[in-house]
């Protein structure tokens, strides 16, 4: 696989949310507004790329028997770094995302990429893989959170775009709406990707 294919893989063919459907907990919970979606997406990109690079660099040093605990420590360290940085420099976003920042540590996509890619490939390829998967995550978060904010609040990034007459669809920003809209989004992506293949 060339570098661009590794990058593209995470966005299209193996998109963590829309295709692999992992790490759904935070996805469903925080996509109530576009800003939250972007913030979470960027935080995941940082943790995923950082842990992929370090794990790949240490892959010859870490014995197979203890690789999972070592992955967990490295991922937890990166998550804590992001948590501290957001707490210090993007406080409003930190408050909006709340417990879901520390919960990045249990997002399956990060451990999955460490195990499936970073532990077997070079540092540069792993960095691109982390970036690609992270951007794929961000794209899906942006799609879902935009739909939810427009339907549920009539606004985008806090700016009202729908006329006052529009009655916000409360369900869109509540948990059931998250499930339904995510299902429709995944359905639409599947429909389009199959049509392309055929």
């Amino acid at each position: 696989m060339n570098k661009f294919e590794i990058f593209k893989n995470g966005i299209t063919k193996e998109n963590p949310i829309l295709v692999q459907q992992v790490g759904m907990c935070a996805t469903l919970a925080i996509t109530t507004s576009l800003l939250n979606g972007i913030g979470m997406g960027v935080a995941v990109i940082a943790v995923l790329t950082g842990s992929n690079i370090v794990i790949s660099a240490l892959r010859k040093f870490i014995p197979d028997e203890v690789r999972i605990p070592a992955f967990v420590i490295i991922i937890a360290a990166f998550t804590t770094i992001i948590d501290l940085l957001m707490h210090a420099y993007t406080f409003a976003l930190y408050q909006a995302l709340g417990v879901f920042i520390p919960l990045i540590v249990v997002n399956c996509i990060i451990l999955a990429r460490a195990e499936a890619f970073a532990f077997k490939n070079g540092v540069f390829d792993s960095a691109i893989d982390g970036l690609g998967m992270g951007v794929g995550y961000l794209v899906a978060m942006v799609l879902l959170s935009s739909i939810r904010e427009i339907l549920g609040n009539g606004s985008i990034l806090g700016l009202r775009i729908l006329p006052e007459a529009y009655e916000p669809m409360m369900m869109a920003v509540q948990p059931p709406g998250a499930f339904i809209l995510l299902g429709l989004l995944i359905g639409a992506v599947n429909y389009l990707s199959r049509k392309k293949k055929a």
Partner: protein
Amino acid sequence: MKNSFVKLGGVLFLVGAISAGVLAWLNDATSDIIAKNEAMASMKPEILEAVMPGSVLFSDYEDAALIDSIKAENSKFVNLLTAVDSSDKELGKVIRTWSTVPGYGGDMELFVGVSPDGKITGISVVSHSETSGLGTRTLEPAFTSQFVGKDAGAEITAFDAISGVTKSSNSFLSAVNNAIDIYSKFLK
């Protein structure tokens, strides 16, 4: 077998120790900023604006010994704070104090802001037990604004008490005068 345990344990130990070291350093570097963020978030913007317009945070006064000596002399005094704006510039002092005369439901607790040139910048009630709708009228700007701009170096004797709410008004005034007393004795 024994060697492999040592090796596995050693690798995990190293990974853990380096991670902990990085996190300890970062925690140290960000803890002050985080503490400030949390302190700012715990303050209600309307109180900040009422007591010291333009302020974003009341931080602890740097001279803790002075606070102790005020406490020793003045039993109603709670705390002395420094009001700062978003660029960390000091805007004035904020005195937190109880009233010396009880109101209808007990003592009232106030924030009194004082500018560097010794004028009262604003007042906000922190806690009170006054009757809702009557004593609570002393919380409203219609009443509190009469103290804004007054000299914080001289006791206030003449003021407009709210008719029918004399007891609460007097309690409020006693807290303001206690802040003035603290200001003239310790901060002037």
